[in-house]
């Protein structure tokens, strides 16, 4: 494993206790703000000091509280991109990038590398501008260039797109992804945006109050989040209190409904029903036997291409029982005051 992290730090409000390994891959740390994601990056970078633990990168010990090893950020060779990019306003774009290679002797080679990276990231014409005079996307390219020329052994991105407009975001995601591919080493990607993480990361670690809740490939984590927090972070909107009935059945306790699930482990406290997996079903169809709910429509919200429909079991209820997402053209055809909806047992998430 290229990166090994096992660190603890008391953060006042809660204790951060993070343990994970990462190969030459893109690992995303997904968590709500204040869950300790950025702090974890800062401790790997050497900006913050853990209370105890070990950090290893490519066989080099960066930090070891028992052996009293604590390399300075300068010695660690980690590339870190900050949320606001941290470009130096008192320097031009090219001088900013030069900061990543300042310590090398051969001036001609430095110049060559500078030109190459600016060409690669399409920022050559910005060379003499100041960071405040260029767009957010361009600033991010400059920050990326500055990090890459320092030849780090790991790349850490702290909420890389949170400062960008949504139309730029997708474009910059692609730029960053291409860069990551050619980088070929470990990339840690901190985010609270599940879409971006799902699109770009190979593995995902879900963080909650200083702990890694769930870690796995993105498919594993999205298909089976295992915890309520992970389900919330991966975008599950319907999370209902529940208890185990048997290995394939789960009871929604608030409504005393038993539904079928693919696999129900012990200790289940909630059931997660993703709203895009809930579908209107024909009365008398196959699913009505087990996972069908006869519901009243108590509200709807229009999204650009879909509707979110609030469903209650009884017409007089104000609070929706579940929410369902349906494509606009489908909903506009079947819109009704009362309908049958269902969810496949495979899509019922058993959560703890």
């Amino acid at each position, binding site marked *: 494993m290229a990166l090994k992290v096992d660190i603890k730090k008391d953060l006042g409000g809660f204790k951060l206790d993070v343990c994970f390994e990462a190969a030459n891959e893109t690992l995303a740390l997904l968590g709500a703000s204040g869950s300790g994601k950025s702090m974890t990056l800062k401790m790997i970078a050497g900006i913050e000091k853990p209370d105890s633990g070990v950090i290893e990168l490519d066989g080099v010990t960066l930090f070891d509280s028992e052996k009293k090893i604590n390399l*300075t950020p*300068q010695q660690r060779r980690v590339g870190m991109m900050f949320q606001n990019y*941290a470009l130096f306003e008192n320097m031009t774009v090219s001088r900013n990038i030069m900061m*990543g290679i300042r310590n090398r002797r051969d001036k001609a080679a430095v110049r060559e590398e500078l030109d190459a990276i600016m060409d690669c990231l399409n920022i050559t014409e910005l060379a003499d501008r100041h960071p405040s005079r260029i767009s957010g996307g361009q600033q991010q390219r400059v920050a990326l260039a500055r*990090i890459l020329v320092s030849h780090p052994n790991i790349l850490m991105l702290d909420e890389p797109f949170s400062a960008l407009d949504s139309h730029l975001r997708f474009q910059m995601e692609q730029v960053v992804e291409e860069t990551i591919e050619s980088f070929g080493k470990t990339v840690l990607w901190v985010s609270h945006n599940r879409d971006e993480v799902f699109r770009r990361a190979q593995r995902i670690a879900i963080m909650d109050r200083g702990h890694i809740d769930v870690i796995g490939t993105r498919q594993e984590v999205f298909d089976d989040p295992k915890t309520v927090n992970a389900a919330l972070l991966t975008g599950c909107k319907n999370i209902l209190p529940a208890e185990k009935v048997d290995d394939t059945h789960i009871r929604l306790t608030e409504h005393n409904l038993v539904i079928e699930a693919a696999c129900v482990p012990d200790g289940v406290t909630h059931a997660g029903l993703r709203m895009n997996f809930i579908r209107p079903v024909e009365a008398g169809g196959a699913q009505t036997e087990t996972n069908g709910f006869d519901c009243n429509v108590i509200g709807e919200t229009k999204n650009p291409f879909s509707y979110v429909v609030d469903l209650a079991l009884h017409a007089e209820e104000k609070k929706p029982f579940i929410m369902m997402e349906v494509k606009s053209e489908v909903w506009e055809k079947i819109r009704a005051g009362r309908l049958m909806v269902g969810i496949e047992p495979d899509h019922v998430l058993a959560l703890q």
Partner: protein
Amino acid sequence: MDLYPLYNSIRIAAISTVIIFFLGILAAYYIAKTPRLVKGVLDVILTLPLVLPPTVVGYLLLRVLGPRHVVGAWFLEHFNVRLTMTWWSAIFATTVVIFPLMYRTVRGAFEAFDENLAYAGKTLGLSNSYIFWNIRMPYCRQGVLAGTVLAFARALGEYGATSMIAGYTPGHTATISTTVYQLWRTNDDALAFKWVLINMAISFVVLLAVNLLEKNQKKSKAKAR
């Protein structure tokens, strides 16, 4: 008209400003890194000269530097140097009095500095001193300059502590402020008024400079946004 007091005042103010420039920056930088409790205590101690009457500062300085007291006696014995009643004795007084001005202004500028910039520099492999002089200081330049100018202006007008530790000897320890007092005491109103005008002119120019700096600072901050 003997211009020695002008020359002496500027000389004293300039030297103490240079000293305070480095001391104030160092103090602001290192105290910001100390734990909260230590910071609070040091902050109070270092700001004290700003609010104490100058005569109290002068008294305390005499208790330390006077020929019959610890430091003063030691210098007299080992180097045969009196630390009081020379022209440069006033530097002690002005340095202590203007230190809080520099320290506070620079600290304010440092607090407004985005620490991520320093962190980014570190992860890029830049040395701490390079980061300090080439990133932190340029960002805080206007605050540091304003503090320096303000400190210089205040040093120029220091009277209380100076008169106690350096006294008034014409052509030797006389500064503008002590000269004004002396002339007024001896009923030389016309000459006293001339020195008052000189002092006001200098202070006016200096404060104008501070204002211009602050205006620039606001402008460049607005630009950055």
